[in-house]
């Protein structure tokens, strides 16, 4: 770097003085850290948490789909299935997409955890965008199915809609359980996005 002559000269002299004297031997090296056998260097808690959460998401999505698909009930030769209601069809479709997406991303993040360091860095940070989109879609599905289930449970006297759940008990219980599990799945998805945002913010140099 070009600078004025006079300040540069004493700086060069100071540098020469520092360089010529050997480093003082008074510094004692800290004793090497005793490593126990099999001690892996610093477990990546964030990556591990991400894999666990994604697997939990996959499990709850699968449970929600299975429970609602097996919820058929027939009473007085009139069946009640999930595909009689467009809201429940959308619910099954959205949660199935969630299940498929979550198993793919579980495998990706599991490989990224094992095959260190940063095997799929770009891909993992792009998953967060799809995570937020899916959060919106799955929340809408949970809201739709929940609204239909609640209306079936309580009926609506103003509109002349009868209480369906008084007749179809098993169907309503299964649909209710499926909606509760998908609510849990959307909470897990929100935590996942927060975890990704937190790990992104930790990588920023302060």
């Amino acid at each position, binding site marked *: 770097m070009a600078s004025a002559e006079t300040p540069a000269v004493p700086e060069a002299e100071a540098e020469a003085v520092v360089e010529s004297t050997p480093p003082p031997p008074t510094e004692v090296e800290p004793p090497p850290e005793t490593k126990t056998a099999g001690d892996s260097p610093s477990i990546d808690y964030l990556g591990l948490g991400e894999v666990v959460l994604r697997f939990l998401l996959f499990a709850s999505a699968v449970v929600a789909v299975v429970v609602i698909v097996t919820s058929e009930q027939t009473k007085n030769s009139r069946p009640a299935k999930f595909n*009689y*209601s467009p809201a429940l069809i959308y619910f099954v479709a959205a949660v199935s997409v969630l299940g498929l997406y979550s198993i793919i991303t579980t495998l990706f993040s599991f490989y990224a955890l094992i095959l260190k360091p940063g095997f799929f860095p770009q891909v993992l940070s792009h998953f967060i965008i799809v995570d937020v989109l899916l*959060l919106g879609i799955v929340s809408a599905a949970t*809201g*739709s199915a*929940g*609204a239909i289930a609640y209306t079936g449970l309580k009926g609506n006297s*103003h509109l002349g*809609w009868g209480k369906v759940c008084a007749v179809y008990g098993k169907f309503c219980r299964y649909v209710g359980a499926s909606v509760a599990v998908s609510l849990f799945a959307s909470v897990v998805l*929100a935590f996942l996005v927060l975890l990704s945002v937190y790990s992104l913010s930790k990588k920023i140099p302060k």
Partner: protein
Amino acid sequence: MMGCDAVLRFFALALSLTAAVVLGIDKETKTVPVVLVPDLPPMNVPLTSKWHYLSAFVFFVVANAIACGYAAISLILTLIMNGKKGITMMIIFFDLVMVALLFSGVGAAAAIGIMGYKGNSHVQWNKVCNVFEKFCAQAAAAVGISAGAAAAFLLLVLLAIFNLHNRH
């Protein structure tokens, strides 16, 4: 990117407020000829349809009101604080919560709206929207506006992620 953030928050505020108000003043009275006794001619019975007769619409209005209030508070906060990390993380967290809340409100109101529009023969729920046309149209408009507010919150979260991604 702070200008973009503030503009999006303002849109979210305006859209969620509009959606809550549009559904909150939704009321329609129609005189419907109803045959009570087969011998007598049909009597004209005034039927009223209000938004709070449907619990899904109540949830929708409450969710939009909460989102509107939060958008106002966070708009003020982001204009005052400039990039303090703790507040930014809190705002991202609550933005995410609002995304989920608004989308579930949209889903619930849309599901009940479609049920009222088409009915469901399997469970003997009759369609209502052929009688109350204005009520249903206004509800559909409110759902559409709230979907815009939910998309605005979604864009806010994506913008925050994009900013974090670019900073390292």
